């Protein structure tokens, strides 16, 4: 384990540490600062202090509590959509690669069409079904993200199925289940891992972007994008307020990008 950790490049290790810190904050802080909704109009736009580590917003709400609740929300939605997308995408990819024929042709055409639409556009379309609802965003994200897993797993599996190691395993008498377990999944795992990291950052970002534009989740839900738009008018009086969701989102993106270790991904 430690040897495995040692051989990771520095960038990926620092990404992992940063991500763990953010996640710990998200998991622990609600118990330290549980109240993210109650307002106190006597105490608005307070600067950070011991009592209010990140200050209070324009309605006197505890910023630390709001920020950490927002983190929980972002990560749970992102994880949920990415896992659903991965399961659907990989299963369909497996089906297409293994069976071929009409099934493959139909699935590939659909995937091609979805690929053509930017993730954000798809999520926007779906969010129109039920504005401000968690589930429409979840469905939109899963629908936009599954194609990546489908495309990659189909290509990897097709290439692996005709590769010499699989040919040789078949000649030695191994069956399909063995090929799946020992040949296909080990090939897929690292690619899917990278895709999932990338997917999580896409999902978190899309959620925040939609919230910011006003078509995602709605106030008073504590969500990073919603917080940014709410606090935007106060940036001259209390710049630290808008800074905290902006910097937090930046740190999440940085952590995921470093951990992913692939520089090509935007």
């Amino acid at each position, binding site marked *: 384990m430690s040897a495995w950790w040692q051989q990771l490049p520095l960038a990926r290790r620092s990404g992992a540490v940063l991500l763990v810190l953010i996640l710990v904050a998200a998991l622990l802080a609600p118990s330290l600062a549980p109240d993210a909704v109650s307002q106190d109009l006597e105490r608005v736009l307070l600067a950070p202090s011991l009592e209010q580590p990140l200050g209070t917003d324009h309605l006197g709400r505890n910023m630390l509590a709001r920020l950490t609740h927002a983190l929980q929300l972002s990560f749970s939605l992102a994880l949920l959509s990415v896992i659903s997308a991965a399961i659907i995408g990989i299963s369909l990819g497996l089906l297409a690669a293994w069976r071929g024929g009409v099934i493959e042709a139909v699935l590939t055409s*659909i995937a091609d*069409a979805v690929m053509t639409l930017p993730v954000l556009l798809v999520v926007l379309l779906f969010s129109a*079904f039920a504005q401000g609802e968690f589930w429409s965003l979840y469905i939109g994200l899963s629908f936009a993200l599954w194609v990546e897993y489908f495309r990659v797993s189909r290509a990897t599996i097709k290439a692996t199925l005709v590769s010499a190691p699989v040919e040789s395993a078949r000649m030695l008498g191994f069956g399909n289940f063995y090929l799946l377990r020992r040949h296909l999944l080990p090939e897929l795992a690292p690619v899917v891992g990278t895709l999932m990291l990338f997917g999580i950052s896409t999902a978190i970002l899309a959620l*925040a972007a939609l919230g910011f*534009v006003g078509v995602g989740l709605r106030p008073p839900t504590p969500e990073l994008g919603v917080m*940014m738009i709410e606090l935007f008018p106060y940036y001259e009086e209390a710049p630290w307020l808008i800074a905290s969701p902006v910097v937090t989102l930046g740190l999440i993106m940085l952590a995921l990008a470093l951990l992913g270790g692939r520089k090509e991904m935007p």
Partner: protein
Amino acid sequence: MIKVLSHLLLRRCLQAVLVALLVSTVSFFLMHSLSGDLAFRIAAGRYGYDMVTAAAAEAVRVELGLDRPLLQGLILWWQQLLQFDLGDSYLSSAPVIEEIREQFGHTLQLALSALVLSVVIALPIGLIAGLNPHGWLDRVSLTLSIILRAFPPFLLGILLILLLSSKLGITNAANASHEHGGLFLPALTLALSLAAVSSRVARDAMVEVRRSAYFNFARTKGLSDLLALLRHGIRNAAVPVIAYLGVQLVFLMEGVIIIESLFAWPGIGHALAHAVFGRDIPMIQGTAIVMGLLFVLCNTLVDIACMLADPRQRYLASRRADA
């Protein structure tokens, strides 16, 4: 070459049709899921809120085909699309096609400026950094690229507004709904995000070329470093950079949606967000289809550029066209 080109165009056209049908189907179900509320709102838009009766709302429902069986309605909906009829906006009552025509120019202007600006920033930095890997320019551009990548376009946009707003006299850009604050800031925001990655792609391509056997052979043949670079370096380094532009287009489209809203730039992305907010289904469908088609078009151009730059791809494409 003509055969290859027609093969490519055919494939892309098919993709375009599929995209249009996909968006249109989603829009159709969207309309159905919102039907009650929708008919009422449209009727209210026509006759005023006080005059809306159940009968008037029902008349609108029939007019929209919402009373028909689902499948029949969907086919009718598709037929309209295939006749290039995108309908009228529920909000402004103007034909969707008219509205989009206006916005499209703005979006194209923004996207192209961003793309050109990003190439102007990224290419020289990337290529020069690649000529001297681990030199100071390489390190500085790597650090900047990592930081910029942590701030996706809309965060970068917010930061730029916060930093520059007082200087440029843009007040509260997020709320400035109709007046926009110029092309420069939104284009720069997008361009910086694009350049953060493409400069590294260009750098890696250059490093790869310089390490290649053919580049070294060009030098041992007796060509000077400059000649080897011009005749054997640049073109081969350009291929991955051009191919990467295709990947960046998705990123650019997403950026356009958010950045237009952030900077109140009156393009398609802004209109789409607006339409979603107002549940203006014909506008949602229209803008989404146009963005999808624009993306297919750009990708086709990238494919052609790649084939022009890389004979291997030309050859593979002609093999595919024959098969």
